[in-house]
């Protein structure tokens, strides 16, 4: 059984096809990486699965843990267990991190259940300490005026607090220095478990030294053109994407 199963997905932006007959299956407990040059459709995949309104899904299916994601609202998809760590997290002035994560957790709770604020803050502070985020950040407005590294840590913090079934990390390594990369990767690794799946989207092999994937896929013009184990990432790093392009042309 798989957490995420995508079949024959075609996605358009303003009538331009970006994903073309795309298929991918990620079983529980596995971490898959997607690599590929700019414009190959990696971010489109993540946004389309999260039901961003600008991405038009014209064909195919996407299932998460038995839920049909097509035609679900973005918040329903989130509550069904899909978490997307954004490449560019959005600034929301005036909404504090603590209140935002709290609201997100409450959105998942049954009406009858009582929110336990003490337990919540205990967990929040623990995760913040793990990720090297100053506790004062609870009162900061969400992503507002954060550095690139702070934004990415904040994404992983939200992911850790919401306990999703499936996580997509969209270029989480971009804009991170080596120390931040270590901390963020450790945060992700600590969440790896037999009942959670991960899709890691990245340009560089560097991130995959820290978050070691079970499988690596190479994306090209809206499709997966090659799959392999973690060694494929190293091969790409040394040979570049042109190698794949040439093979495809042949």
């Amino acid at each position, binding site marked *: 059984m798989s957490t995420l199963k995508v079949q024959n997905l075609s996605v358009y932006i303003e009538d331009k096809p970006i994903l073309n007959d795309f298929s991918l299956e990620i079983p529980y407990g596995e971490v898959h990486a997607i690599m590929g040059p700019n414009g190959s459709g990696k971010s489109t995949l993540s946004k389309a699965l*999260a039901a*961003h*309104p600008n991405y038009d899904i014209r064909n195919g299916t996407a299932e998460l843990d038995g839920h049909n994601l097509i035609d679900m*609202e*973005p*918040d329903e*998809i*989130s*509550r069904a267990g899909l*978490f*997307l760590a*954004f490449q560019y*997290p*959005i*600034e*929301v*002035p*005036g*909404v504090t991190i603590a*209140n*935002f*994560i709290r*609201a*997100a957790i*409450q*959105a*998942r709770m049954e009406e009858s259940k009582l*929110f336990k604020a003490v337990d919540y803050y205990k967990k929040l502070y623990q995760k913040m300490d793990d990720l090297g985020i100053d506790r004062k950040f609870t009162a900061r*407005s969400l992503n507002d005026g954060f550095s690139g590294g702070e934004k990415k840590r904040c994404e992983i913090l*939200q992911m850790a607090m*919401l306990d999703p079934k499936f996580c997509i990390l969209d270029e989480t390594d971009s804009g991170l220095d080596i120390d931040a990369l270590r901390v963020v990767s450790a945060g992700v690794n600590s969440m790896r478990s037999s009942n959670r799946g991960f899709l890691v989207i990245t340009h560089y092999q560097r991130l995959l030294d820290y978050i070691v994937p079970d499988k690596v896929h190479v994306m090209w013009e809206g499709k997966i053109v090659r799959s392999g184990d973690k060694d494929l990432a190293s091969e790409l790093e040394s040979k570049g994407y042109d190698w794949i392009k040439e093979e495809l042309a042949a």
Partner: protein
Amino acid sequence: MIKTNPIEVDREKGNFHYNTDYEFDAGIGLSEDVVRYISGVKKEDSWLQDFRLKALQTFEKKRLPTHWATNDLENIDFDVIRYYLSKGQMPSRTWEEVPDDVKSTFERLGIPEQERKFLAGVEAQFDSEAAYSRMKDDLTEKGVIFVGSTEGLKDHPEIFKKWFGKVIPTSDNKFSALNSAVFSGGSFIYVPPGVKLEQPLQAYFRINAENFGQFERTLIIADEGAEITYMEGCTAPKFETSTLHSAVVELVALRGAKIQYVTVQNWSNNVFNLVTKRAMAHEESEVRWIDCNIGSRLTMKYPGVILRGRKARGEVLSIALANDGQHQDTGAKMVHAADETTSNVIAKSVSIGEGRSTYRGLVQMPGHLKHCKNNTECDALLINSDSQTDTYPAITVQGEDHSVQHEASVSKVSAEQIFYMQQRGLSESDAMSMCVNGFVNDLIREFPMEYSVELKRLIDLEMEGSVG
């Protein structure tokens, strides 16, 4: 989102109506006879009747301010409004004595409950007159007066007459003249020197009858070193026809006094809310208007402070929410009339759907004064592409010695923000509501706690219907 709300008030809450028999009814339309009738019911002295009749002439002479304000004002039909309705009894001192139909209304609005929880005194006005008025006994012993305007005039004419109409002259504008002609109800408050009220006094204004115009008149005097917080709330049922609410509120802060005046305006969308509010701030006194406008069809209200004593301080904190079919035309007036006076205006408006919010600010600092300061910030948030906002600041500063700061901003809730928040599991309307609450948050923190909770709740409810 915010689930803990001690005060349950929402936009629909006031939308109910019990049939009521009135003992006194001035009939439909406005005339000298109507003014004489009102004055007669109240058994007023002749000076006051003359004052009213003169005000009526002023009202008739003055034009609607449509050369600068919205043409929607022309839709007010002064000939179909009922100007006075009452049961003809003095306000009760206990809720038991309040007639059942009126009592049920206020119970449904939660007023007796709030009184028990956190208020030092309550006045509850039903159409033209107060049905209930009571203050804690220890305040009476300290010499605090908290009654309706009719009682105030009768029992305390020496204080009332001294300040009545002195902060806002009859001829200030067409609607202050109308109020001066037909006013009834409102609060009269006097706080003796050095007396500091720890809990707020509250007035609640309820329009019950259709086509009824409410014209309360409030006068608050804080004597030297006195401190008071006054809060007012208001609701009306949703009628098909439009209704007029036109109050005049005058505040006098004597040397070293502090007055905080909080309004949560939640009229139904058929109410024209045209209110004149102004304070006179003497030496080293502080006046703060906290003004929240959520309801009404059209609100025009610019609370002002005349800073006439050295080191006086005036402040307006204003929040306006304009939804479909609403125009919130609000702002502030700060008239510096003494040295070293300071004023601060922070106005935030949110326009939702086809709602429109307008900020009008006036700051005056004449050249002969020294070391005056003003800070004005007005921020607008637009929710939809049809939402509208406009800003008209009028700042007149003469002389070298003053400091004036004006900042304005307009922002829009973006689709990317909503998507991001939805990706974490919040519904679209919860996400909107969080953005709006985030926008007004730093201002709401300044409010008395009981009101900030109510206001957040009201904002959440407003946003629920705004996403489609």
